[in-house]
Every structure is written in structure tokens, then in C-alpha cells.
């Protein structure tokens, strides 16, 4: 093989792999990304039933109900709109009423969000940034709910 041919093989392989990679990435980006909405946005956007997305907000106080077996239902609110959610499975450790939550699933034709996963994997001070940001935008953020520093922090 001449030097030129060797170089051609090398460049050809590189281009082949890169084309494959770009194709795969574009295809995957089209098919496997999930959008994030709050209940108010769901109402505005008139999402189709069956479309997959993530729903974020706060669990409305007093809305958690246990049904048959491990099925639960609760309401997610962003203080502007609410959306009922059903979920079959085990709720995460830090799932609490009044706390931030993100659920992933689809909207049924009756307007109920059918979640197949619920995330609330952080401590009680935690609010998913997506939720915090959206709530801030909508002006219902209670400020940093973090426990404040006791005393004046004297910087040394």
C-alpha cells in the first residue's frame, strides 16, 4: 500500500465512524428526549394524550390518596394550575405533600397524568431546579427555604 492509500483508509474510516455517530445522535435526539412542563404549561399547550413528558411542581397538600394495591393518586400544582396524577409503584423516600416533585409519564384522554416514574430523590430542603425556576418565573417562589445560618457569619 502506498502512503496515499494508507491515508485514504485512515480518513475513510474516521469519516465513516463520525457519520455513523452523528446519525445515531441525531436520531436519538429526535426520539428519546423528554420535555419538562408544569401544570399551567400543560393547560396552555393542549398536549395530545399519549405524549410523553415530565411534569414538575409541588405535591398539593391533602391530595395524596392510596388506592388499590400500590396505586396512589395525588395532585401536582404550580399554584396557577393543577393536574391530577396516578402512579402505581413505590413512592420515593422524600415524597411529601407540599414538596417539589417530578413525574414522568403520559397524559390520558381524561386529562389525568399517568406517571410511570416519580422522582423526589433529595433532602427536605431540595427543590428540583426546574421546578424552582418555573415557580420563580411564575412568582410563587417562597424564597430560599433553606435553613439560614445562625448568628452573623463572621468571616475569618
Amino acid at each position: 500500500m502506498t502512503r496515499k492509500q494508507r491515508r485514504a483508509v485512515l480518513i475513510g474510516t474516521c469519516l465513516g465512524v463520525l457519520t455513523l455517530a452523528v446519525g445515531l445522535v441525531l436520531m436519538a435526539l429526535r426520539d428519546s428526549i423528554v420535555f419538562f412542563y408544569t401544570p399551567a404549561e400543560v393547560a396552555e399547550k393542549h398536549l395530545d394524550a399519549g405524549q410523553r413528558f415530565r411534569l414538575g411542581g409541588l405535591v398539593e397538600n391533602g391530595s395524596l390518596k392510596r388506592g388499590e394495591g400500590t396505586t396512589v393518586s395525588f395532585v401536582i400544582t404550580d399554584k396557577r394550575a393543577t393536574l391530577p396524577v396516578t402512579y402505581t409503584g413505590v413512592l420515593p423516600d422524600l415524597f411529601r405533600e407540599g414538596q417539589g416533585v417530578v413525574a414522568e409519564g403520559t397524559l390520558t384522554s381524561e386529562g389525568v397524568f399517568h406517571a410511570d416514574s416519580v422522582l423526589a430523590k433529595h433532602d427536605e430542603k431540595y427543590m428540583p431546579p426546574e421546578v424552582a425556576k418555573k415557580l420563580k418565573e411564575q412568582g410563587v417562589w417562597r424564597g430560599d427555604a433553606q435553613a439560614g445560618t445562625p448568628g452573623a457569619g463572621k468571616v475569618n
Partner: protein
Amino acid sequence: MIAETGHYALILALALAIVQTVLPLWGTRIRDPQLMAVAVPAAQMQFLLIAVSFAALMTAYVTSDFSLQNVWANSHSAKPLIYKIAGVWGNHEGSMVLWVLILALFGAAVATYGTNLPRELQANVLAVQGSIAAAFLLFIITTSNPFTRLDPAPLDGQGLNPVLQDPALAFHPPFLYTGYVGFSMAFSFAVAALIDGRIDAAWARWVRPWTLAAWMCLTLGIAMGSWWAYYELGWGGFWFWDPVENASFMPWLAGTALLHSALVMEKRDALKVWTILLAIIAFSLSLMGTFLVRSGVLTSVHSFAVDPARGVFILAIMGVFIGGALTLFAFRAPLLAQGGLFAPISREGSLVLNNLLLTTACAAVFVGTLYPLALESLTGEKISVGGPFFNYTFVPLIVPLLIAVPFGPMLAWKRGDIVAAGQRLMVAAISALVVAVAVLAWQQRGPWLAPFGIGLGIWLIGGALSEIAYRVKLFDGSWAEAWRRLGALPRSAYGTTLAHAGLGIVVIGIVATTAWRSESILALKPKDTAEIAGYQLTFEGVAPREGPNYRERVGLFKVARGGGDVTTLEPSKREFTVERSGTTEAGIHASWRGDLYVVLGDQLKDGAQSVRLYFNPLVRLIWLGALVMFTGGALSLSDRRLRVGAPKRAKVLGQGLAAAE
């Protein structure tokens, strides 16, 4: 007083880091050996100062000195001692101190053991290393000072996030950081070579042990993180393609590529420019990992603090170092002479393929990790990119690489014979096929591709063993002769075999547990029984229990299999009194077939209890394989030819052994 000493030491270290950067660089310019020689004691002293600072912080944690804001926010007097110690790096400020400590340790090692490096190279390397230390020390002192005092001192602390109170996690960050920071060594060598405008095989000989050490620690660190997520988060999964996991995985991929391309450079003096670029990329990805985790732009258990000032600072550090290194690269790289021609089918060719696929796979992970951030900052649209994206992109890119792995070591340098290599791999190929067909016949459910995944794992293990068999001429001569050769093989040969076989073990574990995992979610009342993967579980009820700093609700499960009692599992839900949050402790029964994994859920309305059951077949092979890879790296590192302090002696010895290859 102790805290002030620590703070003072940190400031002195910053001043010294600036000296370590400026004087040796100036010295190499004006060719003044005395200025260049400053680098060595400066690097050693800097390590000492940061060690003092780290020790001061640790003392504050161990003695529960709550007058320190950092200790107050992350510790509590009722916490077990090991978590008081681990608490030092279980938070943003402390973990950054650990980061610079490891950085300084690497610098001091080059200063102390690098006496036979060319003097200018050593001075330049230490100067670059010093500049990284200076940037991060400045970052710590200005935005994340762990020695800030509180007045009046609170009576007790706030405690450490309960999910972090775990033995595996206590040692996960030090390993991960050693991996991240270890790549700074390759980076410093690369930039020093670019400043010098000179690079040769000896350079690669020097860079490889550092890269290998970093790679080993990163491998183990990632495995520990995965193991922790598996049993502590209670989801029974081992990898979630979480952005923070990706942040540690990308440097690993780039580091693996660097390890292989440095080999080509050392042995054949080729791929110089590419190796330099990879060294820069590997450390840039480490920096990016630090940025993603520390800036709080991502949602994760790892994001300790959401403070924009810190994010901007780290972003600036990234910009300076990555931008600076790449600019230098653009100007200097054309000066580096290219050497070593090779045919496409050759050891070099296979290593180029390895690099191509690894970096492309790394790029795919990069896109998946950063696309949501980019899209949000550009359009405000919020999306999440999850597992499916990575399964569609990463897997198709990495599978061809895995198929190609056994061929690499079988091909000769310069020009290889693919047919001969194929013949030597015949045994491995046949066993892989037999296993795949057998699994295909045996499996009742699961994707039809899964048996081939298992076959791929066997192919990797078989291929790795075939290489050893070929090198000792197992089937050509007498057994005694083969045995003698086995003893004479360099340790690095065993290192390669172990690392590649470990990869095969990981593949088998991942495929088996992904394809044939059983899962069920049930509502159980006391005395109810459930069945999963041949196990019969009897739920005996729930009882409360007290731990050192938590209360828990423990479920009792009697596990039987085929009529005989196997074990009793006690999954629990813990409520940490101080931190006012909880964790789920899974009940896990490990056997050679796989893990039975029981998670206690919530109390339901009619006295029942929600329970999640999983059976994860062969899941432990994933971490076992990572351990094997780590051992392979360690074996290779202990090889005389690679020994950090002895490149000169090793050169003579190395030639004799290289002839045998």
C-alpha cells in the same frame, strides 16, 4: 487556632503555587538552572502546606468544632467517626481542598521521583502543575473557604446528608479525584512538551504511568459510585446515565484512549500530535466534570451548592486552561515531527481504531450530557435526555470496539496479519459462539440480542487469555516450556490481559442484569408470600429499631428456595433525626446466580406494606470486572519498564523484553 493555621497554610500554598509557576517558566526561557530548580522544593513544600490545611480541617471535623461554618453545616456530634472523617470531603469546600491536596501530591511526586527527567521538561511540568494549583487555591480561598468561622458557635451541627453516610461513598470521592486530578499530570506534560516544542518516546514513557495510575483510580471510583447507587438509592439499578455519572465517565473514556495512544507513541514514535491532544482533552473533561458537579447547573445528589459565583469562577478556570492549552497546541503542534509509518492492519492501526471509537463514544456522551443545558440556555425549553439516548448512541459505537479488542494485541507492530490473528483467536471465537447459542436455547424471555452480548463478553475474556496462550506458545511446545515462558512474561502483559478480561466480565454483568432482570411491586400483609426468580419470600411484618443516629422501620422477610430456608432479609426505611430526612436500605441476598433485592415501601391503608422485589442476575460481575481491570492496571504499573522512578534503567531492560514481544 487550628482552623486559622489551616487557612494560613492554604494562603501560603497559593503564594507558593504562583512562585512555582512563574520562576521555573522564566528560568526555562532564560536558561537559568537555578530558577528552574526552584520548582522542585516549591512543589514539595506546597504539598506539605496543603496537607497541613487538610489536616486542620479534618481535626475540626473529628473534634466537632462547630465554630467552623463548614463543620456546622455538614457534621453532627452524634455521627459515627468514619462519617465525621468522610464528612470532610462530603461537601463542596472540603472536597475542593481534597482536590488540590491530590493535585499537590502528584506535583510533589514528579518533583521527588522525577530527578532523571530532562531538567527543562521537569521545570515546565511543575510550572504548569503549579498554575493549576494556583487557580484552584484562589477559587477555594475566594469563593469556598472551608475555614469560615461562626460567632457565636452553634451547639450542634446540621449533619451530613443521610444518603452520603455510607462506607462505599466515604471512599468514592478520594478515588474519583485521584483519577480526575491524575490526568492533570498528562496535561502538564503535554503543555510542557508544547512549550518546549519537543517531544519523543521518552515523553510517552513518562506520561504513561501517571495516566495509568489516574485511570485505575478513576475506574475504581466510578465502580464504587455505581455500587453505592445500586444498594443505597433503592432502585436496584447500577448506572443511570445521570449527568454527574457521565461527567466521570467521559474522562474515563478519554483516559482509556490516551493510555492506548501513548503506547503507540512510546513504542513506535507515532501519533504524537494526537496523543498530546488527547492528554489535553482528558484533563479538560475532568475540569468540565468538576464544573458540572460543583457549579450546581445539574440536578443531582452530588451538587452540594448552588452558587453562581462558584460556577462562573470554575468556568473561567476552564476557559483559561482549556483555551490556553488548545491555542498553544494550534501554534506548536505543527512543529512536532511525525514518525512511524504503519499499515492500516497493524497494532498501531488497531489502536487508532480504539482511539477513534472511544473518542466518538465519548463525544456522544458529551452531546447527551450538555444538549439539555445548551438548549435551555438558548431557547428556554427544558428537556431531559435519559437512558434511551445513550443506549441508541453509545452502545452501537462501543460494540464494534469490543469486538475488535482481542485482535489488537494479536497484531504485530507496523504490519499485521489479520488472518493469522483470527486463527489464534479461533478458540475464543468458538467458545463465544457456543455460549451465545447455548444461552439463546436456554433463555425463555429477554431480547434475542442478549445471548450475543454474553457471547461478546466471553469473546473478550477468551481473547485476553488467548493472547497469553499465544505468547507462551501454549500449543506449540511442551507444557514445561510454556510454564517457563509464563514466568518470563512481563507484568504489563498480564496487566493487559486482566484489563481486557475484566472488561469482558463487566460486559457479561451488564448484559445479563439488563436483559433478564425480574421486578415486581406488591402490596403485602404480614404472613403473605411472594415469589420471584425461584425464591419464595414470606413477609413477617414490620418492626421499629434504633440506630446510632437514626430510627428505622425494618421489614422482616424469610427467604426460601426449593423448600430449604436460604436467609432472612431486613430491608428498612431509615429516618435520620438530625437531618430530618430518610433513606431506604435495601435487603440484598447475593448468590452466584445474582442478587435478590428487596425494598420496603410505604405503609398502605389496609395494614399492607408496599414492597419492591428485584432479581438482578449476575449483577456483581459488573463491579468484580471493574476490580479485575483495576488489578490489571496495578500489575502493569508495577512492571519495571513502567516504574515511575526508573525510566533509564528500564530502557535497557525494556529493549530485551520488547524484542520478545
